[in-house]
């Protein structure tokens, strides 16, 4: 007799919902292939834009909305270290000092995982069934790396993708300059940072850039295409799920950025 399937709610993140649904479907496939049952509760945003703007009231409302919608599930899985970090690290801070809400926030935090770390650290997945015959370089998005300690997990699974090789860029742990609304409020500084990042990406020699956060990916893809570089940009979940038919981020046909 097999164990009952784990009941997973997908927090798809607002950026994936709006800009790149294919990442959401890739996440669903990866989690289902690992033997879980996936639900998608009605959702909007984790509240991070308000939180980082200093707007505590709206952040609270949105966090409560997420808690109401997601706390009934066994696990909450998020294809983003940033939004995952918001739920896992910052919701408990947000409600510290309010015992009833803090308990709920802690409980939700404890069962919330970034997608790749859920696959490796929780489910113990060692390999994926996918093929991608390209060299890729991987950018460590800041929140996933420093708040959730995600660094080796995506690389470990990527190495099991048939045909794929990893060509590390220098300084893969340095911020791409996105920073949410920072990219718009301080566009010129953000640009200075992403310019250095695209140089490092190009220095890897890989024709494909992967990362685990769509915000960073939109920023880097936008800069790469503005610079006329033909590097294909994708969310790591797309490659791990073997779902690379959709055009890359900012591109029109698979395999070509421009």
């Amino acid at each position, binding site marked *: 007799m097999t164990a009952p399937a784990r009941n997973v709610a997908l927090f798809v993140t607002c950026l994936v919902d709006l800009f790149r649904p294919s990442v959401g479907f890739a996440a669903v496939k990866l989690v289902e292939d690992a033997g879980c049952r996936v639900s998608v509760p009605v959702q909007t945003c984790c509240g991070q834009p308000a939180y980082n703007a200093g707007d505590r009231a709206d952040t609270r409302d949105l966090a409560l909305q997420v808690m109401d919608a997601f706390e009934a599930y066994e696990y909450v899985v998020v294809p983003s270290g940033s939004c995952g970090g918001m739920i896992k690290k910052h919701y408990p801070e947000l409600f510290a000092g309010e015992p009833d809400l803090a308990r709920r926030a802690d409980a939700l935090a404890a069962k919330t995982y970034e997608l790749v770390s859920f696959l490796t650290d929780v489910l113990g997945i060692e390999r994926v069934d996918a093929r991608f015959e390209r060299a890729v370089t991987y950018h460590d998005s800041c929140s996933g790396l420093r708040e959730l300690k995600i660094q080796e997990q995506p690389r470990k699974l990527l190495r099991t993708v048939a045909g794929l090789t990893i060509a590390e860029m220098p300084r893969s742990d340095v911020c791409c300059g996105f*920073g949410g609304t920072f990219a718009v409020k301080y566009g010129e500084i953000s640009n200075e940072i992403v310019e250095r990042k695209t140089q490092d990406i190009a220095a890897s020699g890989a024709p494909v850039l992967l990362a685990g956060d769509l915000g960073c990916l939109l920023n880097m893809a936008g800069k790469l295409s503005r610079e006329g570089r033909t590097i294909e940009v994708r969310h790591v979940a797309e490659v791990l799920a073997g779902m690379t038919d959709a055009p890359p981020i900012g591109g029109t046909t698979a395999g070509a950025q421009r």
Partner: protein
Amino acid sequence: MTVHTTSPQFKQNAHEAIHDAPLQKALNNMRTGFIERRALAAAELPEFEALRDSARDIKKHTLQHLDLYLEAYEKKVIEAGGRVHFCRTPAEANAAVLSICKARGARTVTKGKSMISEEMGLNDVLLAEGINPIETDLGEYIIQLRGEIPSHIIAPAVHLNKEQVEADFRRVHTHLPRDRVLTEPTQLLTEARAVLRERFLAADVGITGANFLIAETGTSIIVTNEGNGDLTQTLPKVHIVLASLEKLVPTLEDVSQLLRVLARSATGQDMSVYTTLSTGPRRPGDVDGPEEYHVILLDNGRSAMVGGEFGDMLRCIRCGACMNHCPVYHAVGGHAYGWVYPGPMGAVLTPSLIGVDKAGHLPNASTFCGRCEAVCPVRIPLPKLMRHWREREFARHLTPAAFRSGLRLWAFFAKRPRLYRFATRIGMAGLGLIGKRRGRFKSLPLAGGWTNFRDMPAPQGPTFQARWAKEKRVR
């Protein structure tokens, strides 16, 4: 406040910094040197992470009992024959320094590196009274020649290239042969050393900063790599120590732990080249040392931070690791921050000291990448503290109006999931259609901050939630 601030013009400062080619050349070196050396030093010491915990706890404990340690410290300084001057404001601190200098009829004052001196704007105050302050730290000496303030708390001239320093030396050291060669850093160093050597001997008063003040013994400690601090404090008849309240540490044992993380975090050295302990003036029988020993203990708003939302910031031991690792600092340099303290630690401290109304940009100009917190030797949660400033700005309506309106509109939809799902389904399907051919937008209304610099990738079309709802019906 005696020091002028350009923090309100942070964006303009940043713009100019980004287009300053020599500055960008100097900043580019920062992306490697400090960072690699710190990583190596940390990796070589198995107990480094445990030492960081210990360093945090020592500073935390001291701040919780600051009143006790301040009193104990003063008592010990007096016992050793020195004096502590408690100063609430930079103006009081400047007045205390001036009165000590005047009592001695001082004409020349040598100075070791001190950020508190920068906070006080001391050099201008001394000059106005006909007293000549001479910076003896090489970096400080260079920027004094240029009429600048430090751009980094441990490497004040890190924004300069050696060609610029050569030009300054040739401009100022006109008594030296014109045909001398000054192309290598060692040649510049040798020249500065020779010029400064004469000044050390002429000084009436020596002023240094302090890395730590020890309550147990009444000792002040400086760490330097040039030895200039030692000459500054031992040759003149009077030694004045400039320090702020949070430099207090209970015991010598505590300091030895903090020293083990300080240099490793700052420059990747195991220890700085010179660690100098001073306790009071020269005692009978001592072969050297000053006749008078004064400590100027500046508050400048710090006591109000103790126990408050920004109290953690007082743990800072001024290693500079946060700015060494900051992508924003790497992009704009230290001067753009517009006041004494740059980088992440400045983004938290400056609003506390000069007001968030003036320094409001600084805590906002961060991507919250978290690298500063990851390397801070005393584990100050810098992004969290910057966020607390943003919360104060939001509450006080200091956040720009357009941004507030945008946020309010977004929050209105985000808090109504069904309306949001409906609106985004239509909006994204439309945007997806418009962007389908090229896959990206070169410009978008209201998104100039983004599209001035990079393309906006087009959405795929219908939202995930719209497609999921449809697919579920099929399943």
